[in-house]
Every structure is written in structure tokens, then in C-alpha cells.
């Protein structure tokens, strides 16, 4: 066990040594611009093609339908905004959920300001979207449904295949934000009828600054970045070659043995969940007990502030998060926790611990040793807790 325990893999992962290894030559030796016609450039292009094939294979997609982007955010923006604007003539209605990542939600807000109607489907107490609700929300104006494969805060996995079957039947485009799902949820874009899919390498042991959008052949999506003719004229900008190579290697490794990966992580995850539930009073597990990402643990501890707990854990060498990393700078309660029906004051007390491949049982046991004490100490300082002791309690 190292001196630091990293339990924030949903925010970002380290880059695996094997991935880094493959990237290195593309900085110093094979640094050609993939668009250059000389052999330096052609070698670079070959490496890019391999990465594209590896990405396609992990999704059961055609390599020609994979487009590299600068981030998961860009992929989400491109999918939602691009598909909406390109299909405007067919209609102006979009369906999504209340628990999407802000990269999707804020893009939908933008579209609302520009004449689109957006339906934000609610989720149940576990954060699951009902596929039949998707069906019922579709009108003759609907052009796009965007539902994330798995949620970044509470880890809930959505019935993507059922939703895909409905959108296909209704002739509506289907986008899924699979940024958190790659490596944990097996993806088959054909079997699941996915038209657009976003991913980001830094969530599956690849580098930051690189993402990809799958765009099914024939699906129109207006361009987001304008300029050179890169990515077959659909995404301008000199290709981030080392990172693309890294993404290719990382996704190949991530897709290799998803059941094995999940089995390992689930064992640790369940040990952590059971351990917390049995040692900490007034703790509530957020998200579904089974339909959740193998590495996701999300709890609310009543009467304490998530931030305070986070800082205490950090002092003990444990890195976790309260909600998603991007919103952890704000003091607003998580929109996801509100959407699953938690009241404001409880949504403030959430802790997300997300496991990765290097975590060990020893580390989990250390967390289980430390966490109950910290919660106890913070509660003792909390006036709310003292007031409510013995009284009515939210569980």
C-alpha cells in the first residue's frame, strides 16, 4: 500500500505504463504532422489508422466512423449540437435526462436559447431512466435522444439497448455519453443501435486531452471546429498524435477483459459498500445496488458537509471526491443527487469513491478503518447532528 490511496478514478485515471510506452516515439522520433505528405507524415498517419481501428474494434464499429476530438466534452458538444443543427429541418425536439454530464446539459441549454425544445426525462430513485418514458416523449418533432451509458457521480448504468431499439424503431438519432462506461460496460454500437457515442481516454487509463466521437455512417452532424481538412474534413486541427496512439492502446486494453476487470473491482466495491453500511450510521448508498459501474461508490452521510469529509480524508492520504470533479469547485449540490430525490441538505453530504485497477483490498480496509472515525468526528462538531440525535432521520 502506497502512502496515498487514489479513489477518484471517475475524475481521471493515471496513464498505464504500456500506454505511455506506445506514445513516446510519437513525441520525439515520429513527430511528423499526419497531414504532411512526406514519409514522416505518412508514418504518423499509419499510427493514427491503427488507433482508429483499435477504437472501432472496442465498440464494434467501423473505423471510418471514429473521429478523434480534444476531449470528452468536445465529443458531447459535437454530438448534441452538431446533430441538432444538422437535422433542424426534420424537427427541433431533443430528449435527454436530468442526470447527464454538464457537457450535454449545457449544450442542451444553448440549443434551447436557439429555438430547440428539450425534454429532460426524470430518473427513478436509483438514477435509472425508464425506456418506455423515452418512447412516450418522442414526438414528430423529435430528432435526437441523448442518454448517458453510465453516470459519473452515482455510477448508474442505463438500459441503453432498450432505448436504442426504441429510437431505431421511431427513426430518431440516439447519442450516448459513454465517457464513464468504456472498460466497464461492453459496447456494441450495432447491437445497441447507437448512432453517436462519446468517449474520453483519461477515464480508461489513457492520456488527457483526447476523446473520440463515433458517428454512424450516414448520420449528419454539423462540424464543431472549422479549419484544415483533418479527420476526413469533419474535425479541424492538427491531430494530437501521441494522445491518439495512447487512446488506441488504452481502449484496446480496456476492452480486452471487461468481465474480469468488473469482477475484480466489484469485489472491492462491495466490500467498501458493505463495510460502510455496517459501520456508519445514517449512511445512504446513492445509485443502484447492482446496475452500477464496478468501480463506483457514492454515499451520503447525513449531518456533515461532503467537502469537510473530503479534506479530512485527504489528510489521511485518501483522494476521493464530492460529486463530479468539474462541479466540486462549486458549492451547489449535485444536480444528479437532486434528481434522484435527495433533499438539498443531504445532497451536500455526499462522498464519491471510485476504484481503479491498482486499488487493493488492503487499501479498502484502511479506508474502512479511517472513514467511520472521520464521519464520527465531523458529526460531533455538527450542530445539526446534535439537534437531531434520536429524532427523525432521513435514510
Amino acid at each position, binding site marked *: 500500500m502506497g502512502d*496515498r490511496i487514489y479513489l477518484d478514478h471517475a*475524475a481521471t485515471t*493515471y496513464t498505464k505504463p504500456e500506454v505511455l510506452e506506445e506514445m513516446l516515439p510519437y513525441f520525439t522520433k515520429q513527430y511528423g504532422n499526419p497531414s504532411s505528405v512526406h514519409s514522416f507524415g505518412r508514418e504518423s498517419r499509419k499510427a493514427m489508422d491503427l488507433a482508429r481501428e483499435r477504437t472501432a474494434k472496442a465498440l464494434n464499429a467501423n473505423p471510418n466512423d471514429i473521429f478523434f476530438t480534444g476531449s470528452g466534452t468536445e465529443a458531447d458538444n459535437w454530438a448534441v449540437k452538431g446533430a441538432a443543427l444538422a437535422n433542424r429541418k426534420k424537427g427541433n425536439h431533443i430528449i435527454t435526462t436530468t442526470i447527464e454530464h454538464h*457537457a450535454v446539459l449545457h449544450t442542451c*441549454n444553448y440549443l434551447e436559447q436557439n429555438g430547440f425544445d428539450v425534454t429532460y426525462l426524470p430518473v427513478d430513485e436509483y438514477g435509472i431512466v425508464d425506456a418506455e418514458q423515452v418512447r412516450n416523449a418522442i414526438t414528430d418533432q423529435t430528432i435526437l435522444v441523448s442518454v448517458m451509458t453510465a453516470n459519473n457521480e452515482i455510477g448508474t448504468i442505463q438500459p441503453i439497448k432498450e432505448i436504442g431499439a426504441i429510437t431505431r424503431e421511431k427513426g430518431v438519432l440516439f447519442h450516448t455519453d459513454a465517457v464513464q462506461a468504456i472498460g466497464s460496460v461492453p459496447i456494441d454500437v450495432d447491437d445497441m443501435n447507437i448512432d453517436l457515442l462519446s468517449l474520453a481516454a483519461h477515464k480508461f487509463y489513457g492520456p488527457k486531452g483526447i476523446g473520440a466521437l463515433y458517428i454512424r455512417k450516414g448520420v449528419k452532424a454539423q462540424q464543431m471546429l*472549422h*479549419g484544415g481538412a483533418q479527420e476526413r474534413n469533419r474535425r479541424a*486541427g492538427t491531430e*494530437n498524435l501521441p494522445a491518439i496512439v495512447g487512446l488506441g492502446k488504452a481502449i484496446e486494453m480496456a476492452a480486452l477483459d471487461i468481465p474480469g476487470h468488473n469482477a475484480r473491482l466489484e469485489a472491492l466495491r462491495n466490500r467498501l459498500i458493505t463495510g460502510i453500511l455496517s459501520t456508519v450510521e445514517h449512511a445512504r448508498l446513492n445509485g443502484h445496488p447492482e446496475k452500477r459501474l464496478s468501480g463506483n461508490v457514492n454515499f451520503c452521510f447525513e449531518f456533515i458537509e461532503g467537502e469537510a469529509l473530503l479534506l479530512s480524508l485527504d489528510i489521511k492520504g485518501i483522494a476521493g471526491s464530492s460529486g463530479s470533479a468539474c462541479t466540486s469547485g462549486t458549492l451547489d449540490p449535485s444536480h444528479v443527487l437532486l434528481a434522484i430525490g435527495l433533499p438539498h441538505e443531504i445532497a451536500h453530504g455526499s462522498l464519491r469513491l471510485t476504484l481503479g485497477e491498482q486499488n487493493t483490498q488492503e487499501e479498502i480496509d484502511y479506508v474502512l478503518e479511517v472513514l467511520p472515525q472521520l464521519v464520527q468526528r465531523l458529526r460531533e462538531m455538527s450542530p445539526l447532528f446534535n439537534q437531531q440525535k434520536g429524532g427523525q432521520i432521513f435514510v
Partner: protein
Amino acid sequence: MKEIYLDNAATTPVLPQVVEAIIDCLKNDYGNPSSMHRLGIQAEKRVREAKGRLSSLLRCTEDEIIFTSGGTEANNMAVLGTAYDKKRRGRHCITTEIEHPSVLQAFAHLEEQGYEVSYLPVDQNGVISLDHLKSLIRPDTILVSIMHVNNETGSIQPIRQIGAMLKAGPGKPVFHVDAIQSLGKLPVYPAQWGIDLLSASGHKIHAPKGIGALYIRRGVRIQPILFGGNQQGGIRSGTENIPGIVGMGEGAKWMAERLAEEGGCLAQLKSRLLQGILQAFPDAVINGSADACASHIINVGFPGLRGEILLHALEEEGVYVSTGSACSSRDKRFSHVLKAMGLNDRILEGSIRLSTSYLTTMQDIEEFLPRLTRTVQRIERFTRR
């Protein structure tokens, strides 16, 4: 045979110390800067450090730097972000005919949405006229976007004078400069020069591809083009590319040192190149005035030859050059830049671009010249009769 890389305007090799910093970052500081724990704070610190390095190269403040996924995104953000923000004030923009596609295509996208764009022509040296620019400015002009050094010919625009003129004139449209080719090779100081927005790209300063930056003068507002987690003050959503950012900081630091110490060395390489080429091929044409162009880019036409053939023949000699910009080298059309300079087709067809960096040595040039001579003579035997 030693390889000679003279395509540094397309992309530059990443410096060993930059790679080291990136590896360190990938291995040790892999946190997400938005996270509250120590690893996150560490990552944020590295972002600040990189901002410090870039801002000292540009002589601006750290909080005026935003990181992007590359030069293209920086240019798109500047052009689209300004136009969307100022659309109530006006919908007229001014740019030049020789901008990079990442500026031109962004303007084309604006035109589709009802904006009006004026394209300044250039003279045979590839330079715009200040008076012409002045005459185009109207009360509803919201944005002027002019590149510093052109990527195909190296021609330099009078950015400082333009900045002064715009700041002194009425309306004060936002002034954006694509400084991607000049950064670290020529001085460019946005805060002092009246520049409001300035684009930079990592892979032109020996940092990796896929990282760029936009300088945004304090007080200048643009609309974001990416929506999401509101990273970087809400101006540019998306988890920051920390290794890229750290690499760009290292690259900027090195460029600042070179600029201060050996700005003259690129000029020496250039004058030797010009002298050697013109001596061997008296009818070769230097596109753009040798004096009005940056030292690291030379665009030369060999009348009667085909640039593409020359490029591939040079490649067999271990020399890497280009026929224009890398991004457009896959479309078959002639260079819009050379066309704008009024070159005839014979020259257009036979032009290649040679571009150096601070890593290029005089020895490289001495070895290059005879290889060029050999190659051109070999081709001429087939094509000219």
C-alpha cells in the same frame, strides 16, 4: 544518410525536456485539476506554472491565458466567440485572404449565419495595406483578425501598427492575432501591442500536438464554444490536458530563452539558404520579399518544376519539406496564399516551403544545399525539354 527536417512550420520535434516533463506528469501528477484533493491541487499548480511560462513569453498576466485543444480551437474560439458575443453591436468582421483555414473556415461559418466578412488582399510580398484596412472599418465592425506570420510564405503583417491604429480609432473592434507561426521566433507582446486575443499552438514550439492557448486581454469578453463543466473560468469546458499544458509551458520557456539569446541564428540560416539556392538556380523565385518575411520560413518557386515531385524526390535524399501548409496539403487546390500574392501558375506549381527551427544547424543547411541541387537537376532531366 542523415535526415534533414525542414518542415518545422508543419510541426516541430518535441524537446527531450518537454517529453520528460510530460512523462513525469502522466506518471505522477495525473490528477484532475478540478478535484479538491492533493493530486488535484498538484495538477492545478502545474497548470499555473505553465501559464506563468507562457505569460512571460507574451509579457501578459497568467490569468489572461486559456488552454485549448490546439491552434485551430484557439482560432475558432477567438473568431466565433467574439462574433457571438458582439452580435448586438454589429455583424461585420475584417480578416485577410491569407489566413490559416482555421480562421477562414470559422468566418465562412459566420457568413452562413448572416455575418458580413471583408477579406483584405495582400501585395506581391504577402502584406496587407494599413490604409486599406482603415477604409474597411465601419461602425458595425466588431472584429479584426489578422495573422502575424503567414505559415506558407513567412510574410509578416504590421501587427503593432494595426493594434495602435485600432485602439486609436473609433469603435475599437476586437483585435485577434493568429501568432501560431511567430510565437517564440519573433517578439509579439499582446498587452503592449493593442492585441485583444492571440492564438498559440504547442506543436509549433516543440511541445506536443493537441494543445494550444488563447490569450484573452483582461476585460475582453467572448462566448464559449464548448459547454460543460465550466473549467477555466467557464470559458473553455473540458478536463484540461495537463501533460499537454505542462509541455506547452516547457516549450514556451525554451522558446523565450532562444528568442532572447539567439534570435539572430535563424536569420543566418535563412541568408545562407537563400544565397545557396539562388546561386545554384538563378531562375528560382523567392515568394514574398526576403526582407518582409520571417527568418524561419522560405517559400521558393522553381519555374517549370512540380513542387510535389520535388518534395518526394527530396524525401529520397532524406530531406523533409512541404509544398504548402500541412493541413491543406491533402487538398489538390493551389495554395490560396500564393494565389492571393498574384503568383502565376508556373511558380505556384513549382513552389516548396522550407522551414527551420532553433534546432536546425548550419551544418544541416550545408548538407541540404547539395542534395537540393542534385535533386532538382535529376528532375529537370526528365521534365524540361
